[in-house]
Structure formats: structure tokens, C-alpha cells
């Protein structure tokens, strides 16, 4: 049985026995894998502890065979490199942020000014004029600008002082103080980090020739205090990168760059690589910048490097089909991106460094540890989210006039329900042959009401029994029923097609040109089912639709937003159909029972996971691996976590080969 294959041994044995090829143990070729957007975001999260998610604004990933992590189709464009470069700068700046205390910077007002002259310790404006000071602003926030001033008063008004900062509206203040007792005048501004230009102006000059009454303004210094509202930064993130304090010492710089590159590149950096990074530090020094500026540059370079952007695996002989085991670092990385969609953690790195990860028992132990870790939610978000189409929720809103109850809260509940449901099969080892027929669901108050289930309270999901209802398993969940419907109505065709594509791996051929679609306006001529029966009249259509449509009809008791219904536009629901050649059913419960008994469903799940590992399911060697994994999966009681462990300990996962 494939489950007890000895890790790597068969590969090596075969390499000797099969005349220099992998033969039937061929692990297949794996293409250089660019981090996709989800992997990029997760990786920088774990590498830097950052809250930034730069890939949210990267171009959408290419998708192949239903998943967005297939190396062969993940392309890279000039735009993406430009965005990587910008993200690296932002990420390093964010990671090295320090807490900025409140500080006061004081500037004498002597020059440059437009008018006036020195007077005592300050500057006297004898007509309207402006003094300018440029102030470095360490961090964004509120800053108080204070000016010490007095007026030589004359005329009806006191002297007026205007304070303006970086183009924000000027604050005009009456300066009532006189020469004997100068006073401090203040205004507060919200400023971005960088540099602020503070303008201090005398704005109401007065001179009466007859009386020689002359109003002037005297200022002596400008103080800028802030930020008054600085948000605290977790400097632990900075310390995790800047491992030592003597940043100007070569040994410290080496430790920092070798340490960060080793984690970012998911394998130790070699001396030459570190030397090249240190050259960037020296470059900055030659430009007169300090060691931290140089280290920032080198850290950015690490994040722009192909060793970060790609998951690099090397072959001793790139043009040989001879299989070889992955290095510990490569294996830890494959494992981590498969189960977590992110870089290895410290424990995996340690197992890679010690070489123990290549031991089958240790590999299984690590995999089971990872599946129990919260980061394993990546399998739910990225694998199940694409397999089950949950990610499509929100792509298209249902018609708000027909479905006024459908809102973001309900949609979020549906999304959470399916996530929680899949997670339960993963976490609790519920056999996957229950996935389509389970008599429980996870609902909150809103979903329970939506599904006509007994009331529950609150927004948290709780597990409830479906006994005595018409719902069972995944196919009667709101998320699935919604994403396989049109905005105004259900689509038995879309539902049936989804079952063929994603549960049976039997994608139907596309329709002949010009016959797609079913207009909404024709509802008056019959139920949707009646209209779809037209498919059966045309032999070309019937060849696919006679298989596809009934799988949708079986779910016809559920409307376009997943509510139970007994009629459609005034026509009673007919949810009868035939599964395969002759198994008749009426409604979702009977249909899903038939599906759950079909071994094709489990082979298809394995095929989907095999694809998600990053493999084309259409290569010759794939068929054999998928068949063997399926046999184990069924024999071992349909336990998803066991299947995942079986996959990661399989020869094709732990080995690779070159390409002649």
C-alpha cells in the first residue's frame, strides 16, 4: 500500500534500477514557483511582523486548473517587479520604525525674512512680511507651533501674527503682548512625516503719517513640539531584524544581513551573497549615509531578490531526469507553502537545518503540528476557497429588488459557515464521505433564520443539527447556492456544472457557439426547469445537459440566495433526476447520498489537492500518484488530515528531477 512507502528510499532505489530515469517513480518536473499574492502577503507578515499587505494591490494572479498557485501559469511582468521594488521599500521602512517621542525643536527667527531687521534677541517686522523655517518632522501626527512675540501697538487693532504650515490654512492670532512682556502664541497642525515649512508672518501693518503711529511685530523664536499623538510602535519587530546594536561594525552588519537573508530566502545565505549585500551598505556609506541607511538598502535588496520572489529548488544536474531528494530547506519550504501558504516557521527551519525533516516520521510529525496550527487556515482560504468557490462570494450581487434581505452581513455569514464547515473536517477528522451529506451545519442567528432552522442567537457560528430538514452537507449551504446562481434566479446548469467540474472532475464540453444563455424575460413561459428541458430536445445539447442539468435540478428546492422554496415563479419545484445512468433521486438529500457513495468524488478531491500542491494533474506520472493516494484515502476512512500527510510524504512531494 502506498501509505507505507519509505520516504525517498524508493526514489533512490529506482534511480539505480531504472537506468537513470525515474521510471514509474518519476516525481515529475516542478516549475520555478513565483510567490502568488496570498503567499507574498503571508510571507511578509511572518517575515516582518508587518500589518502591510502589499499584494492586495498587485495584479490578480494567473490561474490554471482552478487554482492560483500553479507555478507553470504564474507569470511575472514588469509591473509586478516595479510593485515588488516599491513594496520592499515600504516594508523595510515599516519594519524598522522606531518610537518617536515628543520633542521640541526651536528655531531663531533671524533670516531669511522678507522684511524687517534684527532687534534684540529677535526680529522686528516693520511692515508686512514673512519668516520661513523648515522643520524636519519625524513622524506623522499633531504638532504645536509656538511663537514668542510682542507688538509695537498702534492704530485700532493689536498686531496680528499669522502662522501657516505647509500650505494648510493660516492661523491668525492677535498679539496683545507689548515689548516689556513678550508672550508665547500657539497653533496646532496635523502634519505628515517629512519636512514642514513653517511661515510666520506679520499681516496687519499700520502707519499713520500724521501721528507717526507705527504698528510693528517682533518675534524671536519658533518652537515646534510633537508629535503630540504619536502611536506606539512595536520595536520588537525592529530588533528581530537588527540583531545587534553596533550597526557600524562589519560583524554586526554581517549577522543582520545573513540572518535576514536566511529567513527571507528560506535557506542559509552563502558568504558570497552576504558580501554582495554588504557592498550595498558600503555604497550608502560612500554617499555619506549612516549604516542604518545602508542596511535598509541591503534589506530591500533581499526582498527584491529572485531568491525571495521565487521558491527556488535546484537540481544537481538540471538536464537529468534522475530523481533526487529535496534538500531539507527545499522540503521545509514546499511543506510550508502547501499547508500554510507562507514561509517556514522557526521550528521548520530548525528541522531543515538539522536535516531531520527528511526523515519520514519527523516529516509527518511536522505536518501534523502544522495542521494543528492556526496558520493551517490557509488551506481553507486558499484551497477550499477556490475548490468550493467560496472566494466568489461578493463577485456579483444578487438583484436587490428581488432579494432585499441579502446584505453584507448575510454574505459574511455564508462565507464564515463554509470556512468553519471545511475547517471542522480538517481539524476534527470528520470523514470526508460526510462532506456532502452531514446532518449538521454552522449557523448564526441570521443564517438560522435565513435557512428556516430553529433560532440561535448572536453573530457567532454554532453547530446545529439538520435532522428533520431538507438540508444536508455542503451543497445546501448558502455560499454554494449563491455563487452558482445568477443575480435574479437560480441556474441548475451552473450548479450541475459545478458538480461535474469540482466534485467529479468531469468538466463538460463547452456549448456550441450561439446557444448560451437563458433570458430572464422568458420566465412567463414556464419554470426554469421547463425551459431547460429544451436542452433534452436537441441531441447536441442533450449529450452534456442530460448529465449536468439533473444535478442542478436536485438542488432546486433552494433559491438564488440559498433559501428553501417550494415553488419557482409560481411553478412547483420538481427536484427529481437521475444520477449517472439509472440511479433516480428526488431532492438534495437523495442526490447527495448518491454523490457521496461515488468513489469518483474522492478521486476528484485528491486530484484537486494534487493540483493545489502545484502539479499538473494531466501528466502521465500524475495519474498513478492520484490513484494511489485515492486508494489510501478511501481505505483509511476518508480522513483529510491523513490524506494531506500522505501527500507530503509521497515520493513526488519529497523529490524532484531535472529536465532533459
Amino acid at each position, binding site marked *: 500500500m502506498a501509505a507505507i512507502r519509505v520516504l525517498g528510499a524508493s526514489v533512490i532505489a529506482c534511480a539505480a534500477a531504472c537506468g537513470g530515469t525515474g521510471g514509474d517513480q518519476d516525481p515529475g518536473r516542478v*516549475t*520555478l514557483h513565483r510567490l502568488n499574492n496570498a503567499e507574498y502577503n503571508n510571507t511578509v507578515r511572518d517575515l516582518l511582523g508587518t500589518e502591510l499587505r502589499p499584494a492586495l494591490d498587485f*495584479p*490578480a494572479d494567473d490561474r490554471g486548473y482552478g487554482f492560483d498557485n500553479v507555478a507553470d501559469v504564474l507569470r511575472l*511582468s514588469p509591473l509586478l517587479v516595479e510593485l515588488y521594488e516599491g513594496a520592499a521599500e515600504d516594508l523595510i521602512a515599516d519594519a524598522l520604525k522606531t518610537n518617536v517621542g515628543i520633542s521640541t525643536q526651536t528655531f531663531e527667527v533671524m533670516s531669511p525674512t522678507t522684511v524687517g531687521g534684527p532687534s534684540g534677541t529677535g526680529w522686528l517686522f516693520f511692515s508686512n512680511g514673512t519668516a520661513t523655517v523648515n522643520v524636519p518632522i519625524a513622524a506623522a501626527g499633531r504638532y504645536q507651533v509656538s511663537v514668542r512675540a510682542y507688538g509695537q501697538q498702534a492704530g485700532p487693532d493689536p498686531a496680528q501674527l499669522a502662522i501657516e504650515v505647509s500650505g494648510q490654512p493660516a492661523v491668525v492670532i492677535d498679539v496683545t503682548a507689548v515689548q516689556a512682556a513678550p508672550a508665547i502664541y500657539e497653533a496646532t497642525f496635523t502634519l505628515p512625516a517629512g519636512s514642514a515649512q513653517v511661515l510666520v508672518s506679520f499681516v496687519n501693518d499700520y502707519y499713520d503719517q500724521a501721528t507717526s503711529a507705527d504698528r510693528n511685530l517682533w518675534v524671536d523664536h519658533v518652537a515646534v513640539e510633537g508629535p503630540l499623538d504619536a502611536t506606539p510602535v512595536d520595536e520588537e519587530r525592529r530588533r528581530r531584524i537588527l540583531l545587534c546594536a553596533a550597526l557600524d561594525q562589519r560583524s554586526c552588519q554581517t549577522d543582520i544581513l545573513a540572518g535576514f537573508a536566511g529567513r527571507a530566502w528560506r535557506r542559509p545565505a552563502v558568504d558570497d551573497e552576504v558580501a554582495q549585500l554588504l557592498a550595498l551598505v558600503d555604497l550608502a556609506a560612500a554617499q555619506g549615509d549612516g549604516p542604518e541607511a545602508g542596511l535598509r538598502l541591503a534589506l530591500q*535588496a533581499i526582498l527584491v531578490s529572485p531568491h525571495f520572489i*521565487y521558491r527556488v529548488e535546484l537540481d544537481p544536474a538540471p538536464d537529468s531526469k534522475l530523481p533526487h531528494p529535496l534538500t531539507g530547506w527545499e522540503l521545509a519550504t514546499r511543506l510550508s507553502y502547501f499547508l500554510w501558504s507562507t514561509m517556514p516557521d522557526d521550528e521548520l527551519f530548525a528541522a531543515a537545518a538539522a536535516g531531520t525533516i527528511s526523515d519520514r516520521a519527523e516529516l509527518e510529525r511536522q505536518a501534523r503540528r502544522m495542521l494543528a496550527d492556526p496558520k493551517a487556515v490557509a488551506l481553507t482560504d486558499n484551497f477550499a476557497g477556490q475548490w468550493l*468557490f467560496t472566494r466568489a462570494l461578493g463577485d456579483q450581487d444578487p438583484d436587490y429588488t428581488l432579494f432585499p434581505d441579502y446584505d453584507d452581513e448575510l454574505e459574511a455569514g455564508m462565507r464564515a459557515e463554509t470556512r468553519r464547515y471545511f475547517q471542522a473536517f480538517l481539524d476534527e477528522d470528520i470523514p470526508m464521505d460526510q462532506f456532502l451529506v452531514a446532518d449538521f451545519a454552522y449557523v448564526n442567528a441570521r443564517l438560522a433564520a435565513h435557512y428556516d432552522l430553529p433560532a440561535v442567537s448572536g453573530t457567532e457560528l454554532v453547530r446545529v443539527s439538520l435532522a428533520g430538514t431538507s438540508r444536508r452537507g455542503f451543497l445546501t449551504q448558502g455560499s454554494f447556492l449563491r455563487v452558482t446562481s445568477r443575480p435574479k434566479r437560480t441556474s441548475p446548469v451552473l450548479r450541475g456544472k459545478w458538480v461535474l467540474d469540482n466534485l467529479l472532475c468531469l468538466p463538460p464540453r463547452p456549448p456550441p457557439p450561439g446557444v*448560451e444563455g437563458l433570458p430572464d424575460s422568458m420566465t412567463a413561459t414556464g419554470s426554469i426547469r421547463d425551459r431547460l428541458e429544451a436542452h433534452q430536445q436537441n441531441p447536441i445539447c442533450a449529450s452534456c445537459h442530460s448529465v449536468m442539468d439533473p444535478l442542478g435540478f436536485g438542488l432546486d428546492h433552494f433559491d438564488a440566495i440559498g433559501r428553501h422554496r417550494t415553488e419557482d415563479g409560481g411553478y412547483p419545484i420538481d427536484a427529481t433526476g437521475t444520477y449517472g445512468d439509472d440511479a433516480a433521486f428526488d431532492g438534495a438529500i437523495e442526490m447527495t447520498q448518491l454523490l457521496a457513495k461515488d468513489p469518483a468524488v474522492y478521486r476528484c478531491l485528491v486530484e484537486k489537492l494534487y493540483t493545489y500542491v502545484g502539479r499538473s494533474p494531466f501528466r502521465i506520472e500524475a495519474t498513478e500518484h492520484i490513484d494511489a493516494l485515492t486508494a489510501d484515502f478511501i481505505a483509511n476512512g476518508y480522513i483529510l488530515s491523513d490524506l494531506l500527510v500522505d501527500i507530503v510524504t509521497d515520493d513526488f512531494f519529497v523529490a524532484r528531477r531535472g*529536465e532533459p
Partner: protein
Amino acid sequence: MRFSRRLFLSGAGAAIALPFFESLRSRKARGADPVVAKRFLGYYIPCGIVMSDWTPSAEGAAWAATPILTPLVPHRQKLSVLTGLDNRPGRSDGGGDHAAGTGSFLTCKHVRKTAGADILNGISLDQVVAPVLSAGLPFPSLELGTDGGAAVGDCDTGYSCAYARSIAWAGPTTPLPKQTNPRAVFDRLFAGYDPDATAAEIVKRQLYRTSVLDHAVDEATSLRGKLGKTDQAKLDEYLTSVRELEARVATPTRVCRPGARPEDNLSFAARARAMADLMVIAFECDLTRVITFMLGNAGSGNTHPQVGVTEAHHELSHHMMATSNLAKLTLIDTWEVGELAYLLGRLDAIEDAPGVTVLDNSMVFFSSEIEDGDAHRHTNLPVVIAGGGGGTLSVGVHRRYPNATPLANLFIAMLNGLGVPATTFGDDGTARLPDILTP
């Protein structure tokens, strides 16, 4: 004082109003021989057009407005409606006409049907002209749109998402992905923008960026030698991209008024409008002279609540001649044309030189991946060309072309007008379409 990209941007907007378009202004100031900054803009709309509400009955300059073309009436002197052009290479192989037609929208090539890695198309019109028009500018071209792409499933009946999402192709296997968040586009256009930077600071920043990219090239070059041939081809995408960016980093920075940074999380209609404003800024600031824009992806399923249409566009486009469906499609189509009219109006309100607007110097091509949504035809496409092409484009009329006139022949004319001496284009472009260029 060094500014990080973000720091500066957060302070941009209202606070800074600086002279814009310096390069052209200074040339204008010299008076004689004003430089003509020719531009190209490709504008894509999905799911075809209700042709009965689009096509004017009369030819020539006196065409009467049809329901869908009504928003363009204020600009009729500066555009032409072209009827009867075919993009036959856009046909699908057994279904998938939206993706196939979109892939071929600006390439006029019959794309290879594949959902895998072996995509094959041709170079698109915008990428042919980009090196000519945008030489020395910060961006050779911009690829913009409103939608990243559906989150799951097939993109279209066995065709790669690359065909469905990209109309700009730098080469047969290199689709150029587009940006769809206006805020991210703004940040990219004005990254490093710092009107206070000294010449020395600018030079240092360029040196640092170049050094990081040099480092990347060195590492990739060293890695390349250790890889098999498929992986080498993958890594070449990276190497080419880094080298291109490195060349652009040396481009002089440009001081131009950025306008306001767009909001995040805009609705579809608001996103479309924000992108139009960004296209105007990009041309106004002379950041690039080539833009392509997709108002939705191939066979878009967007709903259009902004005009009261709650059905998915693609589903509705299979109208089966039902009048209620056609009426809703006409609402969508008219809104799309209204968005084009808004863009043309703004481009026509900015002068490159006294009496010469940005629109006068631009060539705008507007069309869809198919003709009629129900028939999936790639013949008789709905086409508008707009702008003056820097004095090369003859516009202001509705023209009918004989059956089987290739769209690619229009592209040859446009290429010639933009300064590219092409005589063939795509699969079926063999001669310049007559009457497009000024005599």
C-alpha cells in the same frame, strides 16, 4: 532630507500646486515648431453592443445620434464612428469567444486555446507604439482596468485568464497585467515624487534604486545558470522586467501636480470614473503617452446598479432578442459610451499648446471583444476612433466599410499616423484602411 514614497504622498494633494507639464511648456515657450506629443489610448468594453441602438443610419458628417451614441454628440467633430470592421482572428476554437476576442482586441491574432502555461498571442498595437511615443518618459505604457478577475473557476471555456484580462501584450507570450485599484495607480504614478528634493538627492535616490536592481540582476544571472530550461524561461520574465525597470529608474523625475489621491474601495462605477481621471493626469503630466483601459474583463458579469441594471452583464448580453433585455443592455452600453465621452471631454479641456488639446494629439480606439452579445460575432464590430492623432487623424464622420474589411487595416492606418511605418498587422492586416488619416 530623504522622503519615503508614502510619506510624501500623504502630504500631496491640495497642499502642492506646482507647474505641470514642464517639458512641453518649455518647448512651447520656444514658440517655433511646437513638439507634437502624440498619444494612444485603447478603450475596451466587454460583452458587445446592441448594434440596433448604436449604428447611425446616415454616413458622413451629418450622422444622426443613436441612443447609445448620444453622449458622444458634443465631441462629434473630434471622433468617427466606423461600421463594418471585422476582427476575424478573434474567433474562438469551440467556445470562449469573449476571451479569444479580448486577447485579440489589439493584436488581431488568433490566440492559442489553452488554460495552461502555453499561451500564444501577438504583440498589441499599444505595445508597438509605446517605445516610439513614450521614449524617455517615466512609463512606457499604463495598463488599467476596473476588474482584477473573477476569483474562481475557468476564465472562459478553456481559455487562459491572460486572454480574458489583458488587452496589452508586449509579445506573443507576455500579457501585461493591469492595475485595477485607482489608489494604487496614483501611488505608482507619483512614487518618489518630491518637489523639494535637491538635484543631489534625486541622483542619490536613483543610484540606490539602480543598485538594488543591479543586485537583483546579478543574483538572477547567477541563479539562471543552475536552472533547467523551463525554469530559465520563467526566470527570464524576471530578468527582463528588472532590466526594464532599471532603465526607467534613470528617467528624469517630473514635477507635476498630482491631484487628489483616490479613495480605496470604490464601487465599480466610481472606479471607472477615478481611472478616467488618472488617465487624464498621466497624459497631462506626460508620465506616459500610451494607455490601455478595460471597463470590465472578457464577458464581464458586472452588474450596473448605477443605471438601475441588476442583471449580470454577460448573462443579459445573451438577450435572445427579448426587448426588455435589449433595453437594459442599451442602458449599460450608453453608460459605457458616457464614460468614454467624459474622458474625451477632459482630454479636450487640456491644452498641449495654444489651441491644441491633448485630445487633438491623441488617437483613441474604443470597441468591444464582440459585436452583438448574443451572436458572439467578431464581425461588424462597434468602433469609435477619437482625437486628432497630432494632426494625422481625419475624424468627424460615420463611415461604412465593405464586408470583410479587417480591423487590422484600421490599426495599420493608426500605426502610420503615430509614426510607425507598418504595412501589415496581426493575422489579416494587409493594407492601410483608406480615409482614416488626413491626406
